[in-house]
């Protein structure tokens, strides 16, 4: 699942996911009918508007063994919110479809560690990196330290702890514009912590959170780049990941 944000704004994340999964011997398909899981609508209170999106998602991913999502919050929405939307639609077929999709849907680090059983994916990324665990991966999916275990196994990486790592960055979907001032106050504290680590790259498993913190890091001219977890894991010594490739 590319996610709408990954598809339209941050193609680096799903492209790196494709490259990484292929390298690990996974037969990757990208169903072209997919669009958006509907999370932005659900989390803003627009359940009716989310119904067609849930329907599209369920039908696009019917029949695959596993659905891999490079986003904790989108995977969380599929697993924890689609049922509510389907109930609202009053459509038993959709309820069934959602019930089939949920258990087959994995956030990237869950798929790598739990399904493929790897923590060393053969990646190489010789840079100073700090990792922000995103809220929905942490507290909705409970991915725990899986992303960190994956990062620790990366060759050449200088992984530094992020102070206050588990505190929300302040993105919060439409919160970022509905409560822009509070969102920015939270994000500025996160950005300050990131800069304090001396890291070149801030890594996270959600492009949305990176868009927010990265937007602050850019505006404040900190020189810190943001990268999705998939991009770091996709990078190897022979074939380093360059974001310019997706420009």
């Amino acid at each position: 699942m590319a996610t709408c944000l990954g598809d339209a704004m941050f193609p680096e994340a799903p492209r790196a996911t494709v490259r990484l999964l292929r390298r690990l011997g996974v037969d990757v398909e990208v169903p072209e009918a997919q669009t958006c899981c509907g999370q932005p609508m659900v989390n803003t209170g627009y359940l009716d508007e989310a119904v067609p999106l849930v329907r599209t998602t369920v039908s696009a991913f019917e029949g695959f063994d596993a659905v891999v999502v490079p986003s904790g919050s989108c995977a969380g929405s599929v697993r924890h919110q689609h049922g509510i939307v389907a109930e609202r639609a009053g459509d038993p077929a959709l309820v069934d479809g959602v019930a089939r999709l949920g258990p087959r849907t994995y956030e990237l680090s869950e798929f790598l560690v739990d399904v493929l059983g790897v923590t060393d994916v053969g990646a190489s990324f010789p840079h100073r990196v700090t990792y922000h665990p995103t809220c929905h991966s942490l507290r909705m999916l409970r991915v725990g330290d899986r992303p960190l275990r994956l990062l620790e196994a990366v060759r050449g990486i200088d992984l530094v702890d992020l102070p206050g790592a588990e505190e929300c960055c302040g993105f919060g979907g439409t919160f970022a514009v509905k409560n822009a001032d509070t969102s920015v106050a939270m994000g500025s504290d996160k950005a300050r912590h990131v800069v304090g680590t001396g890291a070149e790259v801030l890594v996270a498993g959600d492009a949305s959170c990176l868009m927010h913190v990265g937007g602050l890091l850019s505006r404040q001219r900190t020189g810190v780049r943001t990268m999705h977890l998939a991009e770091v894991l996709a990078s190897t010594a022979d074939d380093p990941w360059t974001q310019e490739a997706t420009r």
Partner: protein
Amino acid sequence: MGRTFVGMPPFPVAARTALADSQLRRNLAHATGTIRGKRAGAVAELEDWEDLGAQAAAVKDRTLAHLDEHLVALEEALSARGATVHWARDAADACAVVADVARRHGIDEVVKVKSMATQEIGLNEALAEQGIAAWETDLAELIVQLGDDLPSHILVPAIHRNRAEIRDIFRTRMAAAGRPAPDDLTDDPAALAAAARLHLREKFLSARMAVSGANFAVAETGTLVVVESEGNGRMCLTLPDVLVSVVGIEKVVPTWRDLDLFLRLLPRSSTGERMNPYTSMWTGVTPGDGPQEVHVVLLDNGRTRALADEYARQALRCIRCSACLNVCPVYERVGGHAYGSVYPGPIGAIINPLLRGVGQDPQVDALPYASTLCGACGDVCPVAIDIPGVLVHLRTAVVDAHRSDTRPTAEALAVRAAAWTLGDARRLALAEKAAGGAGRVRRGRGMPGGRGAVSWLPFAGSRWTGARDLPLPPRESFRAWWRRGGGTEEGRR
């Protein structure tokens, strides 16, 4: 005296004002950080913490499912022990009962135990209108009352004040309320507490009537329970002749065995203590000992409305420990006043809309959106209220309440337009292609994909770009890349 939250602006506006107060942010970050650490230590001591919480949640759910029966049992037990039970549908009913009792005894001054229910109904202000002075005796509530301020936290209502501010309030305001603060008062915490003790001692010894709330009401015996730290509650509950307790109907627990669970959970989750210093329990009237006239006001004030929502009624499990406030990154930055209610923070963001209903007041309707849905509140709740889940549920209720409005909001139109575009892969692909054009026009560096940054957007977009850059859209969407053979060698570049 007697400021209220009436007329407060909606959260986003109130939050902006609060965020500009750097002293407030420092006070809050320091105080919530301290309580968080203390609580984490106290909770970690118990191996069966989560199990206790699950049991407590089950007790509350079971009780709420048959609330009518438990309340009648409570009323019977209370009456049998000499208490007078009053049923109050709303704030006005409850305030009238308290004022009536005072008037019948010719009382114009009452002492108060810290109580959320009486704050909720605006009792002090209602009594003041009748010429009855209600004195708060909890230290933090005293600070708020003397400062003509509003509470900003459930457990520590003066959390937004530091000790220098408190000294100034005591110096300038205490004299008008009774015994003045000493002239040489410093901001040493012990000195501040000593000044408050002397001031309050006069109130305890002269008051003939006390008003309290209750943390719990045990139905099987008609026993009310107040949990506190300072001993002011014990003074109020034992010294005056007349005692009126205003108790939310969700405070009932069926048995003492049930109560046991909550007395283990509450202190650790609220103040981070194994046991709170004072737990007072009283059952009606005990002849010759303590208050000889005891009234209990059972307060609805929107609780049955909340109860009617089968999913969101879990909010009525709340034991007002305020752990969710202390872990909330939004609360930590804006403080309690921005929520416009005596119940701030994550629990306030769900309990206020539930008690008052949505779709009528923009201030109330904004509250479920005053959260990033980060989930820290739900994780820390000792009675397992799924606060993020209820927040989303209430957002849906807010949107649904406005679906029949004749003029849809700009937000609703934007969401519908987005949902339409995203509803079909071909429409989305066209939108992506159009956006990709911008990437061709402007080049830059520094953002993901080596793309340039957008630093200014008009209209609602400015809410993003006010402080944050946004990358230019990629020239090629993921979808387009995949379509031209993504991931195969020729498609990689």
